[in-house]
C-alpha cells in the first residue's frame, strides 16, 4: 500500500531533529507539524515569524496573525516576529536547518519545479526559490506520479525550475529517495511497495 498524505507527512517528520528551525511548505508539508511528537522543533513562517503555533480556536482568529499560506494561526511562548527582509535574510543566510516542500516535478539532479505551468497555471514562486537556495536541507514531499500515472520524478524537469540541484531527499507515496551524484538512491519503500514498483514508477535514474 502506498502511503497516504498523512503517512507521507509522518515519514517526513522523521527528517526533523531536536532543536531544528524548520520551514514547512503548503499542502502535505503543513501536515508534518502534526507528527513531530516530543521533538523540540521551531517552525518558521516566512511572512515573518518563528515559533508558529496551531490554528486558533473558533472565535480567536486574529487577522494580524497568519502563516505563509494566509491561514490564521497562533503564537507560542517562544515566538518572535520580524519583517520580510529579515525573514528571508535568515532563509538565504542558511539559518533554517530544513525545509519540507511540495513539488510538481523533481529531477535526479535535485532540480525542483513547483511554481508554474506555462500558459496554464501561474501561482508564482512565493518564497520557494529563496528557501531551496538558502536552507540547509531540502526535503520534497509529493506523489510519485500524476493522475495520468506519469512519473513526476524525472531525468530532467520539463517545467520552469524553482531551483537547480537543490533537493536532498524526496519522499513520495511510494518511498524515500536521496539525490546522489550518480542518480537517485532508494532509501526506503512504503510498506508493501517494492524497489521494483518504485523503479517502474520512476523516469529518473535509480542507482
Amino acid at each position: 500500500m502506498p502511503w497516504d498524505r498523512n503517512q507521507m507527512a509522518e515519514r517526513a517528520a522523521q527528517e526533523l531533529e531536536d532543536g531544528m528551525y524548520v520551514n514547512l511548505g503548503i499542502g502535505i508539508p503543513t501536515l508534518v507539524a502534526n507528527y513531530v511528537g516530543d521533538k523540540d522543533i521551531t517552525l518558521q513562517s516566512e511572512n515573518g515569524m518563528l515559533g508558529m503555533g496551531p490554528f486558533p480556536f473558533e472565535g480567536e482568529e486574529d487577522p494580524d496573525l497568519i502563516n505563509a499560506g494566509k491561514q490564521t494561526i497562533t503564537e507560542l511562548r517562544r515566538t518572535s516576529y520580524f519583517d520580510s527582509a529579515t525573514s528571508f535574510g535568515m532563509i538565504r543566510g542558511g539559518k533554517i536547518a530544513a525545509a519540507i516542500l511540495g513539488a510538481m516535478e523533481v529531477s535526479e539532479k535535485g532540480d525542483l519545479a513547483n511554481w508554474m505551468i506555462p500558459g496554464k497555471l501561474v501561482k508564482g514562486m512565493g518564497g520557494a526559490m529563496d528557501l531551496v537556495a538558502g536552507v540547509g536541507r531540502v526535503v520534497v514531499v509529493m506523489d510519485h506520479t500524476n493522475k495520468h500515472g506519469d512519473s513526476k520524478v524525472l531525468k530532467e524537469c520539463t517545467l520552469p525550475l524553482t531551483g537547480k540541484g537543490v533537493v536532498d531527499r524526496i519522499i513520495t507515496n511510494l518511498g524515500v529517495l536521496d539525490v546522489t551524484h550518480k542518480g537517485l538512491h532508494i532509501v526506503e519503500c512504503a510498506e508493501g511497495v517494492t524497489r521494483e514498483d518504485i523503479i517502474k514508477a520512476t523516469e529518473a535514474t535509480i542507482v
Partner: protein
Amino acid sequence: MKKVYGSASEALDGLLHDGMLIAAGGFGLCGIPELLIDALVESGVKDLTVASNNAGVDDFGLGKLLATRQIKKMMSSYVGENAEFMRQYLSGELELEFNPQGTLAERMRAGGAGIPGFYTKTGYGTQIAEGKEVKTFHGENYILEEGIFADLAIVKAWKADTTGNAIFRKTARNFNPPAAMCGKVCVMEVEEIVEPGTLDPDHIHLPGIYVHRLIQGDHEKRIEQRTVRQKETA
C-alpha cells in the same frame, strides 16, 4: 514637521502621477494599506507599476486597482489567490515581473539603504536569472539583483506617534518596513496615532525618519483563509 493628515486622499495629495512606481506593504491581505489603496482608486492615477508581494484578492486590497486597470505592471512573488490578476497576466493585459519573495523584500530594503545592487543565490539556474549578471563568490554562483527605488511607498502599521515612529503587530509587519524604506516619499496608515513618548524607543520597528505622511483610520482587516481547530471536549 507636520506629518499627520486628515484622510488618505489628503495624505496622497500632490504625490501622484501616471506611470509612477509604488511600493506597497502587506502580505496577502495581512497588513495591507487598505485606506491608501482605496484613495488611489479614487484618484484615478494610472499606468502604475506596483511592487508588492501579492495583489490582494479580486475585491479587496490591490485587487481593486487591478479591477480598474490602473496598474500596468506588478512586481510580485505570488498571484495564486487572485483570479483577475492571473487572468490579466495570462491574457497579456498586465505586465508581471516575478520576484522571489525574499529577493523582492531585499530589493526594497536595498533601495531604502542606498544599495543599488546585491548578489543572491536565489533563482540561480532558473528563468528568474535570465539576463541577469552572474558572479562567483567562494566557488558558488550568484545573480545580481537591483535595489528598488520607489516614487512612493504606501504602508500600514498598527500604531505610530505623530513623528512617524511606528510599531507593527504580529505578522502584519511583513513587507511594510522594507516597502517604507524604499519610497522617496512614504505615506503610512495606522489604526491609532499616539503622542510622542507613548511608544518605548526600544520598541520602535520603523523610525519616523522613514515616514513622511501619516493617517489614522478604521481598518477592515479581512481574513483570507479562516482556519480554526476545535476545542477538545473534556
